[in-house]
């Protein structure tokens, strides 16, 4: 539900930015704080989280659209089995629906809450596997925990990276994957040095802050 709405907000922002930074004279002026498409996405997420505990199925469907990739991808990475990951996703969201009244946005983030349920369900599946492998009913070995944490970290950061919008997403991609310096990035994307530095700082701090909030208790 949100993708269309969000897409249009991001598009507007990019247009606004193109207008602002498009001219040769404008690009010589270094804006202190460049436009921030991620902030609109945050506001939309916050509205969803606030509506979740009392909302009905349309709200729940929007929550599913927004965060099911997080749940599915985490389960898929840990379990390495798309069918089992689909089962986990179903279990997590059915459980989230039934206990949604217990979710309190003041006590934590909604993706963090969903990640906590995902961890539990994934652990159940790993335990079931261990038990099936060893029918003598010995306590299951502690095999799943390190990979679960790693998967949660990666998927949460991937989700945030996907939501940075442009140009921050391109700038970070050039920094991370092409390992360019901020000076090389500025050259490549034709933005002033200060703007690139500001994008890098804000995006990285944002990734860190969201990650720390959403990863929940380890």
């Amino acid at each position, binding site marked *: 539900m949100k993708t269309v709405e969000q897409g249009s907000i991001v598009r507007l922002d990019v247009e606004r930015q193109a207008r602002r930074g498009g001219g040769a004279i404008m690009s010589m002026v270094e804006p202190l704080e460049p436009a921030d498409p991620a902030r609109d996405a945050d506001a939309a997420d916050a509205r969803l989280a606030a509506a979740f505990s009392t909302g009905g199925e349309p*709200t729940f469907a929007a929550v599913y659209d927004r965060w099911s990739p997080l749940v599915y991808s985490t389960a898929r990475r840990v379990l390495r089995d798309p069918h089992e990951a689909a089962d986990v996703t179903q279990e997590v969201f059915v459980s989230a629906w039934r206990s949604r*009244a217990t979710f309190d946005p003041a006590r934590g983030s909604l993706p963090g809450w969903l990640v906590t349920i995902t961890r539990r369900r994934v652990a159940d599946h790993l335990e079931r596997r261990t038990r099936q492998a060893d029918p003598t009913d010995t306590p299951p070995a502690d095999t799943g925990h390190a990979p679960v944490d790693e998967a949660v970290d990666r998927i949460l950061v991937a989700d945030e990276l996907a939501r940075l919008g442009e140009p921050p997403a391109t700038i970070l991609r050039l920094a991370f*994957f092409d390992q360019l310096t901020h000076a090389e990035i500025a050259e490549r994307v034709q933005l002033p040095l200060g703007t690139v530095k500001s994008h890098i700082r804000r995006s990285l701090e944002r990734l860190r802050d969201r990650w720390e909030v959403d990863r929940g208790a380890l």
Partner: protein
Amino acid sequence: MAHCDPQTLSLVAIGEEPTAEEALHLVTCDECRREWESLRAVADVARDINDDELMAPPVHVWAAISEEIAEPSNVVPMRSRRGFAPWLAVAAAIGLVVGGVTGAVVMSRPAPSTIVASVPLEPLADYSATGNASVEVVDGTEMLSVDVSDLPSTDGYFEVWLLASDASSMIALGTLGPGETAKLPLPAGISLADYPVVDISVEPYDGDPTHSTDSVVRGTLPA
């Protein structure tokens, strides 16, 4: 030296070289080092991420979920005991009239409204009316809020409908007066995926409950 500039900390966290002075400061200043280390931790995770890391589940998963949650036996539990402040239980035990207190608090709180989906309404045929429809959650109830300007003059009235994508079935939600914003409650359990199209029609006063087929504006809620 003074603390490192936050931009510098970020650049060093993604792998750029600090100056000798900055490097020395990072070794000696706990505050800057902690900040740098936390940024470097997330940068290390991000650097490792593949393009296909984030995948949407297959479509059948949502179908299975909506089927499972639609079963009438799966009643949503009452507000959990976790949300129930322990001091309330203690107060109740020692005989305070908590009902009055909490009742008053609940009554005085304004109904929060949250928009979960929204769509512009575009005119059909010869009409020039435009507007907006949104699904809002008001105090736990889902409402369709419609706001249309430039409605044509009519001897009849305007009716708000939700239609299936192919208009093979429809639900009448209520009426809309000219210049009005209508907030119409959605039937409980309705799936907007089945009825995504918001439609406003001109209806004659003929007592016929079916759609007149004279639609003024329409918009499809995002799926």
